[in-house]
C-alpha cells in the first residue's frame, strides 16, 4: 500500500520455478527516492544481484516497471521499462518500450513485476487483476511476433466470450533461439536493446498478457488536467516535437546528420553517405508513409506506418535507416522497410543486428572471416537475418554480436561497440560529447543512456562539436535529466522542449549563435548545478515534468529534487554494474573512433575520450576508477 497517488501500490515477485507469486516490499521511502521506471528497476536489481549471476542462469531477474504517470494521461507517459542482466553485455541493461503493456499492468493493479526462476515448459502468463495463470504455449512457441500476439488476443477473447482489452508482451523466434540481441515486443513497439528478449527465451517465457479494471489514482485531478492540456500544447508548438517529429518521424534527422557529418556510413568509417537522400526521412515521408502512428497518450506521434508487399506495417526509425542504409552502403529504401519489418517480426534489435552485419561485411572485405557478406550487396541480407534468428549457418555466430565475433576473428578496432552493446547511428567523431556518452553509458554504447549530447552539438543547437570543453558536465546534466524523465514513465522526447523553441527554429539568429558560442564556457555553471541541484528548489517552465509528478503523486517535487533522483538512479545502476566488473577500464570506444580521424586532413575529428572521461568522473564525484565513492553513495542515500 502507498500513501502516494499515481501508484497502484503493489510490486509482485513471480517465481517461475514454483509458479507462485508474492508481494515484494517496496515502501513509500523507495518511491520518494527512485520514483519508478528505470530507477525502481535498478534499485531492485542492485538489492538482489550479487555479481555471480549469468544472463541465462535461473537466478537472473527480469524487472518490468511502470512510472507513476503511466495511465494518468500526461503526454507521452505510456512507457514501461524492462531491466535485467544482458546476455550481450554481461552487465545490467534497461530497455524502454512504448507499447501498451505498462498501461494494462497498472490496470491489473501492479506497479512492477519481478520475474525469477525458469519455466519447465514453454509458457505464457495471463494476469487478470489478482489472478496469475500459467498457460502452456503449444503452437504459440515458434510463432512470429504479430502472429503470436493475434493468437494470444484470440485466446483471451475466446476465454471471455467477448473482445478483451489487454496489453501483450511477447518475443519472436530470435528470443526463443537466444539470439543475444533479441527484443521483447508490445504491439508495434519494442524493448529492443541488449537482448531482453533472449532472457525471456532462456526462461521459456513466450509472452505475458495483462488486463484488469483498476484505475490509476491522481492526487490533484483538476490541476493535473489543466497542466496536461498546457503541456500538450507546448509540445505541439515546439519546432522539434510539434513539427519535425510528427512530419518526418525520427527519420527526419538523416538529412541534418548528413550535413553535420555524423551519419555513420560503411561501418563507421565515414560520417557521410553520398546517396543519403534516397534513404532520408523526406523520401520516406513523401513516397512511403501512409499514416503517423505512435504510443498511447502521445501527442507527438513519431512512428510511421508504411506499405510493405501490400501490408501496412511499422516504418523504420532513424537508427535503422542510418545503419541499414549508409551503414552497409545500401540506397534501396524499399529493402530497408522490408528488413525492418522482418526484424520486428523475428523479434530482434535492428541496431545491433545491422551493426553486426556491417562488422561482418568489413571483416569479409579484410579477409578475417569469409562469409559472402559485402558492402552494397543486398541480395543475401534478408536470408542472413532469418539465419540469425534461427541460428543457422553463419547466423549462429552473428547472433553473438560484434564484441564476441571480433574477439574470435580479430578486427576489434572496427567492432563498433562499447561494453558489448553496438552504437547507434550517430557518428561521434564530429560530436565528441556524444562519443563520451557512448563510452560511459551504463548499458553500453547507447545514444540515450549516454546523454544524447548530439542534440546540443549538432541536431538542436550547434555548440562546437569538436571541443571537449564543458562536454563532461553537460553529459552528466543531460544523463541525469533524461534518467529522471524516464522515471515517471515518460518519453525522452518530452525533454526536447528543454531547449526553447526559438533556439531551434532560428538556428542563425543572434540569440542562438550567442548560446552556441557560450556553451563551451558554461562547464563550471553546469558543474555547480550538477553538484548542488538543491539550489534549484523551484519548478522550471522548460521542464514541466516536475509539476506533473507533483500533481499526480502528491510528492513534494522541484527541479533540484528531480535532477537528484535522476542522478541517484544513474549511480545505483552503475553500482550494480560494478558488481559485474564495470569500471573506467570498460568505458571505452573502438579505436576507429578514438584514434583515426574521420577527416584525414583534420586531426581534431576524433573523440578525445581519455581527457573527457577524467573530467566526467570528477564531475560525477566518482573515483579515478570510474566508480561512485562511499561518501557519494551515502550523500545520495543509496546505502
Amino acid at each position, binding site marked *: 500500500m502507498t500513501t502516494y497517488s499515481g501508484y497502484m501500490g503493489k510490486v509482485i515477485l513471480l517465481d517461475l520455478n514454483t509458479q507462485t507469486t508474492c508481494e515484494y516490499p517496496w515502501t513509500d521511502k523507495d518511491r520518494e527516492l527512485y520514483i519508478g521506471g528505470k530507477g525502481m528497476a535498478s534499485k531492485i536489481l542492485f538489492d538482489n544481484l550479487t555479481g555471480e549471476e549469468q544472463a541465462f542462469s535461473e537466478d537472473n531477474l527480469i524487472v518490468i516497471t511502470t512510472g507513476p504517470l503511466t495511465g494518468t494521461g500526461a*503526454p507521452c507517459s505510456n512507457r514501461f521499462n524492462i531491466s535485467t542482466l544482458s546476455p550481450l553485455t554481461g552487465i545490467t541493461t534497461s530497455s524502454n518500450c512504448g507499447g501498451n503493456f505498462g498501461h494494462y499492468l497498472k490496470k491489473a493493479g501492479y506497479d512492477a513485476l519481478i520475474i525469477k526462476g525458469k519455466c519447465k515448459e514453454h509458457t505464457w502468463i495471463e494476469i487478470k487483476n489478482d489472478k496469475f495463470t500459467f498457460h502452456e504455449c503449444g503452437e504459440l512457441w515458434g510463432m512470429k511476433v504479430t502472429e503470436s500476439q493475434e493468437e494470444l488476443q484470440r485466446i483471451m477473447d475466446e476465454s471471455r466470450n467477448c473482445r478483451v482489452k489487454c496489453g501483450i508482451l511477447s518475443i519472436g523466434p530470435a528470443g526463443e533461439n537466444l539470439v543475444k540481441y533479441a527484443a521483447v515486443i508490445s504491439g508495434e513497439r519494442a524493448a529492443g536493446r541488449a537482448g531482453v528478449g533472449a532472457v525471456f527465451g532462456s526462461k521459456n517465457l513466450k509472452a505475458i498478457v495483462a488486463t484488469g479494471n483498476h484505475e490509476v489514482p491522481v492526487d490533484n485531478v483538476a490541476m493535473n488536467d489543466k497542466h*496536461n492540456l498546457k503541456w500538450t500544447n507546448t509540445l505541439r508548438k515546439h519546432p522539434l516535437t510539434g513539427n519535425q517529429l510528427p512530419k518526418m518521424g525520427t527519420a527526419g534527422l538523416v538529412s541534418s546528420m548528413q550535413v553535420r557529418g555524423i551519419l555513420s556510413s560503411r561501418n563507421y568509417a565515414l560520417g557521410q553517405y553520398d546517396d543519403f537522400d534516397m534513404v532520408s526521412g523526406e523520401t520516406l515521408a513523401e513516397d512511403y508513409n501512409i*499514416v503517423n502512428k505512435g504510443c*498511447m497518450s502521445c501527442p507527438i506521434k513519431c512512428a510511421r506506418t508504411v506499405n510493405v508487399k501490400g501490408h501496412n506495417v511499422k516504418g523504420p526509425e532513424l537508427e535503422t535507416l542510418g545503419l541499414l542504409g549508409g551503414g552497409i552502403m545500401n540506397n534501396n529504401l524499399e529493402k530497408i522497410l522490408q528488413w525492418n519489418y522482418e526484424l520486428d517480426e523475428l523479434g530482434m534489435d535492428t541496431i545491433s543486428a545491422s551493426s553486426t552485419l556491417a562488422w561482418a561485411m568489413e571483416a569479409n572485405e579484410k579477409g578475417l572471416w569469409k562469409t559472402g557478406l559485402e558492402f552494397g550487396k543486398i541480395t543475401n541480407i534478408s536470408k542472413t537475418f532469418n539465419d540469425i534468428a534461427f541460428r543457422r549457418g553463419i547466423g549462429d555466430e552473428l547472433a553473438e554480436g560484434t564484441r564476441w565475433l571480433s574477439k574470435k576473428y580479430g578486427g576489434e578496432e572496427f567492432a563498433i561497440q562499447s561494453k558489448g552493446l553496438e552504437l547507434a547511428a550517430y557518428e561521434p567523431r564530429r560530436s565528441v560529447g556524444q562519443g563520451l556518452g557512448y563510452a560511459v553509458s551504463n548499458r553500453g554504447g547507447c545514444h540515450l543512456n549516454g546523454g544524447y549530447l548530439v542534440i546540443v552539438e549538432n541536431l538542436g543547437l550547434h555548440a562546437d562539436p569538436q571541443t571537449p570543453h564543458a562536454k563532461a558536465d553537460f553529459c552528466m546534466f543531460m544523463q541525469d535529466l533524461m534518467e529522471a524523465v524516464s522515471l515517471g514513465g515518460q518519453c525522452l522526447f518530452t525533454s526536447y522542449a528543454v531547449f526553447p523553441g526559438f533556439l531551434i527554429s532560428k538556428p542563425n539568429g543572434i540569440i542562438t549563435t550567442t548560446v552556441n558560442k557560450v556553451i563551451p564556457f558554461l562547464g563550471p555553471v553546469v558543474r555547480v548545478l550538477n553538484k548542488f541541484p538543491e539550489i534549484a528548489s523551484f519548478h522550471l517552465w522548460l521542464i514541466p515534468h516536475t509539476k506533473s509528478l507533483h500533481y499526480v503523486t502528491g510528492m513534494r517535487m522541484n527541479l533540484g529534487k528531480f535532477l537528484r533522483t535522476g542522478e541517484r538512479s544513474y549511480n545505483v545502476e552503475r553500482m550494480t554494474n560494478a558488481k559485474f566488473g564495470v569500471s573506467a577500464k570498460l568505458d571505452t570506444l573502438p579505436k576507429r573512433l578514438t584514434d583515426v580521424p574521420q577527416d584525414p586532413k583534420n586531426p581534431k575529428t576524433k573523440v578525445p575520450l581519455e581527457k573527457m572521461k577524467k573530467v566526467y568522473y570528477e564531475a560525477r564525484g566518482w573515483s579515478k576508477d570510474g566508480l561512485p565513492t562511499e561518501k557519494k553513495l551515502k550523500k545520495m542515500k543509496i546505502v
Partner: protein
Amino acid sequence: MPFSINREKCIGCDACRLTCPTQAISGLQYEKHVIDPELCVSCGLCADFCENKAIYDNRGKLAEFCSWEDWGIPEVDAEICTGCSLCVETCPMYVLKINEPEFHGDIRTHAVLTDKDLCIGCEKCAARCPIHAIKIIPRV
C-alpha cells in the same frame, strides 16, 4: 458505476446475458449470473429485461434502464484532440478509433466515432480524456 446481480433473486433466465451490449454478464441457464464490473457500462438494458428485478446499482438501488435515445454520444474536438488514443483503449464497444489521413506533409491525428448506432453512451471516453477534448452530445 457497474451494476451487480442479487444472487438470491436471480433465477438464471439468461435474458440479461443475451441482451447485454458489452457481454459483461456470464452464467449458464438456470444458474446464478454475474456481471463483470470491468465490462459493465451501467446502461441498464439488463434491468429492463430482468423480470425478477434482481439487478442493482452500486448504491444498492434497483437499476434503471436508460432509454436508447437518451444515451449521449461523444463528439471529439479535432482541434484539441492529440490522438493519444486513451479513449480508444477505454471504449468498451470499439467504436472510437484514431483517424487515418493519407499522408501529405502535415497531418493531425485525432479520435473519431466510427459508428454512432453501436455507441452505448457510457461516457467513459469523455471521462478518460486527459485534456477534455470529448463532449457528450445528444444522439438525436
